[in-house]
């Protein structure tokens, strides 16, 4: 993908990174994989890694051509502590976008953020 030159400096409106679609993708996968799960410190590293890979593949297949993707998954235990996550990006606001979703149950909290950046 990266090698071919299209000389397009802006994606077609149809090809733009659509946050709503990506948010749906994230939601489906997270709800399916994490409903009823408890926070287990042995399993969590593997779980978060596989969740990130799964979401990355799903978003790739959703057909956002020429977009570089960064998927970040954060899974935390629910123990009454305070947590805050925030992000800022230095990019081209016309072409780049992000989608995020938060899932909570009694024993864990999962935040997923997907960033899409157009490769000129």
């Amino acid at each position: 993908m990266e090698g071919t030159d299209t000389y397009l400096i802006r994606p077609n409106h149809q090809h733009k990174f659509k946050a709503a679609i990506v948010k749906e993708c994230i939601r489906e996968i997270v709800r399916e994989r994490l409903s009823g799960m408890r926070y287990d410190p042995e399993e969590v590293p593997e779980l978060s890694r596989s969740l990130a890979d799964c979401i990355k593949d799903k978003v790739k297949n959703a057909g956002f051509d020429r977009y570089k993707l960064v998927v970040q998954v954060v899974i935390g235990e629910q123990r009454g502590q305070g947590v805050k996550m925030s992000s800022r990006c230095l990019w081209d606001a016309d072409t780049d976008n992000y989608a995020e979703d938060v899932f909570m149950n009694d024993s864990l909290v999962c935040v997923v953020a997907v960033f899409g950046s157009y490769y000129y």
Partner: protein
Amino acid sequence: MDEYQTEDETAFVVEESVEAAIGGNAYQHSRVNQWTTSVVEQCLSQLSKLGKPFKYIVTCIIMQKNGAGLQTASACFWDNTTDGSCAVRWENKSMYCIVNVFGLSI
């Protein structure tokens, strides 16, 4: 012209920014919002001052120390030869701060 950015360079810039923004403070729920924003904005402005041809994504997580566990993972679809990421962990007696920087070349 050196187009690439090393991880060490990025880590150094980030550590400085975190120290400047929240160093020496104890966890306070009312100020956390302001802290995460200032950490992230400081990092981003220092990174943009480096003047490299990169788009940056900076995320910051601040968590109170209370014995709970936290795990972060990321998966990226990019060009391995030119793009990279860097994670910096910082802590003090009452909180943890994890900053992730992703650099995507133009």
